[in-house]
C-alpha cells in the first residue's frame, strides 16, 4: 500500500533521512524504531507531505505522491498523529472530528463520528474544548480519533504511547489492536518500547542516523546485535 523508494530528506547540510526504502502492506502493522534524531518523524512528515523529500519516490496505492499536496494525501487515505498532540484549539472534541471527517472524506456521517468517539473513549468529553479540557491520554486518543475520522487506509502513529503511565499504556495498546481489526487499517507506528513493538507489530524497521539498518520480524530485528547497539548503546551489545 505504502512504498518508499530510496527516500532522502536533507535540511541544508544535514541528511535527516538517507535513501530509505520501506513498505507497509494493506492491513499490516509496521513498527518504526530508532534512537532520538534517527529521522523517524521526518520520514512521517515526508509521507504526510509536511516536508518534501530531496530525492526518491513515495508511492501510495501505486500513485506517486511527490506532487500531491498535504490535504490530498489525507483524502487518499493517509492519516497521522503528532507526537505532541495538536488538537484544533478553538473547537470541541466532536467538532475536531467533524472537521477531520468532512474534509478528509468529503461528507459528514454522524454515526461514524459517534463510533469513533466511543471507540477512543472520548464520548463523555465530546462537547469539551479540545485544547483546554483534556488530559494527556485523552489528547493522545483525540489524535488517533481525528486520524480515524478521515477513514484512512494507513494510520501513522507518532509515539502515541509516550508519556502514558503503565495502565494507560496498556489500555491504549488494547485500543490500537482493536482498531487495527475493526477499521481494517494498515499501521506504521513510531515507538521506543521494544515490548510494545513486539506485541503489536508484524514487522519492524530500524532507523539510525537517517539510514535503515534493519527491516524484519520483531524477533529477527531485536536479536540483531547492530540494532541493539544503536538502540541501547554499545555496552549492552
Amino acid at each position, binding site marked *: 500500500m505504502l512504498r518508499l523508494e530510496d527516500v532522502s530528506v536533507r535540511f541544508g547540510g544535514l541528511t535527516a533521512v538517507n535513501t530509505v526504502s520501506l513498505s507497509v502492506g494493506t492491513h499490516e502493522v509496521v513498527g518504526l524504531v530508532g534512537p532520538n534524531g534517527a529521522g523517524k518523524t521526518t520520514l512521517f512528515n515526508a509521507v504526510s507531505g509536511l516536508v518534501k523529500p530531496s530525492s526518491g519516490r513515495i508511492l501510495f496505492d501505486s500513485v506517486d505522491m511527490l506532487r500531491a499536496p498535504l490535504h490530498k494525501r489525507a483524502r487518499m487515505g493517509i492519516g497521522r498523529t503528532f507526537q505532541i498532540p495538536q488538537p484544533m*484549539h478553538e473547537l470541541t472534541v466532536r*467538532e475536531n472530528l*467533524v472537521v477531520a471527517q468532512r474534509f*478528509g472524506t468529503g461528507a459528514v456521517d454522524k454515526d461514524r463520528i459517534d463510533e469513533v468517539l466511543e471507540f477512543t473513549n472520548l464520548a463523555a468529553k465530546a462537547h469539551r474544548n479540545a485544547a483546554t479540557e483534556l488530559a494527556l491520554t485523552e489528547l493522545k486518543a483525540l489524535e488517533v480519533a*481525528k486520524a480515524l475520522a478521515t477513514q484512512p487506509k494507513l494510520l501513522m502513529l507518532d509515539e502515541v504511547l509516550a508519556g502514558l503511565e503503565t495502565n494507560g499504556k496498556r489500555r491504549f495498546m488494547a485500543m490500537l489492536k482493536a482498531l487495527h481489526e475493526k477499521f481494517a487499517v494498515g499501521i506504521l507506528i513510531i515507538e521506543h518500547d521494544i515490548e510494545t513493538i513486539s506485541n503489536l507489530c508484524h514487522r519492524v524497521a530500524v532507523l539510525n542516523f537517517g539510514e535503515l539498518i534493519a527491516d524484519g520480524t520483531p524477533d529477527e530485528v531485536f536479536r540483531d546485535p547492530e540494532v541493539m547497539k544503536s538502540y541501547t548503546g554499545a555496552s549492552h551489545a
Partner: protein
Amino acid sequence: MYVSKTGFAVIAAAYVAVPLLLGSNSYVMSLIVAAMIIGGIALAWALLGNLGGMVSFGHSAFFGVGAYVSALLTMKAGLPVLAAMLLGGVGAVVASLAMLPVLRLKGPYFALAILAYAHIFKILATEWSSVTGGSGGLASVPRLPELAGFDLSSKTGSYLVILTLLLAFIAIYRAIRSSHYGLALRAMHDSEDATRVVGVNSTLLKALMLFVSAFMTGVVGAFNVHYINFLEPDYAFSGLWVTLPIVAAIFGGYRTILGPLVGAVTVYLVDQLIFKNLIPSGHQLVLGALLVGMIIFSPGGLVPLLRKALGKISGAGKDNVAQRAREESC
C-alpha cells in the same frame, strides 16, 4: 436563518425608527451613512482576520477598485447602478486574484505585501488616465436610482441601501461561520498543520475568505462612489479606508460579527458629534486614546465587554448556555 428577538427589534428600529426620527436631519444622516460605510469595510476586514487569520493593511485597494469598476460600468457601459455596484464587488475579487501569491506569507509579511498591492492599484488608477480620468478623477458619477418611486440617492434612501448591504454581509458572515468551512477556518487559527493533515486545503479556504472580504469591500466602495458622485485616485485608495475600519473593528471587537459595525458607529459618531466640537483640530487624538484604553481593559473589544456587563445584570451564570448560543450567533 435564526434571528433573535433583540436582533429583530434592532433591525426594525434601524429600518423604521432611524429614518422617522432622524431622516429630516441631513447632517446626522450623512454622519450615520459615513459611519456605516466604515462599518462595512470594518466587517469585511474583520471577516478576513477572524476567519482567515490574516491582517490586511490593503483593503483600500478593494474599496478603490470596487468604486472605479462600478463608476466606469455605469458611465461608459451604461449599466444600472445597483447591478454595477455588485460588479464592483466582483472587480475587487478579480483584483484580489493578484494577491493570491502572497497568501502563503504569514502575519506582518502578508500585511505589508497587501499594503504594497494597494499602492499598485492607486498608481494604476492614476496613470491609466484614458480609462480612469487619471488624477483629475471622474466627475458626475451616476447617483443611486429611484426604486418604486423612492429616491435612493436621498440621505434616507442611501441610508437604507447601505443598511441593507450591511445586513446582507452579516447574513453571509454568519452563514460562513456556522458552516463546516467556518469550523475548519477556526481550527486553522492555532493548528494549521493539524487541520491540513486531516484534509483541509488551508490555502483554498484562506483564498475564499480573501475573495469574500474583497467582494464586500468592493461593494461598499461602489456604494460610496454613487453616494458622493465623484472619484479620484487619492481619495479612492486613501489609507483612511483601511485605518479607520481597523480602529473600528478592534474597538468594537474584531472576533465578533457585530463588533466592527458597533465599533464603527460608536467611534465615528462620538468623534464627529462630540470630540470634533470640543477639539476642532486633532480630535482623532482622543480616538487613539480610546482605542488604547479599550485594548488594555478589554482586549476583545466593546461587544464582548457589553455582553459581559449585560450578563452580570441579567443574573450571573443563570443562562450560560443561552449566552454561549448568542455569542455563537452574533
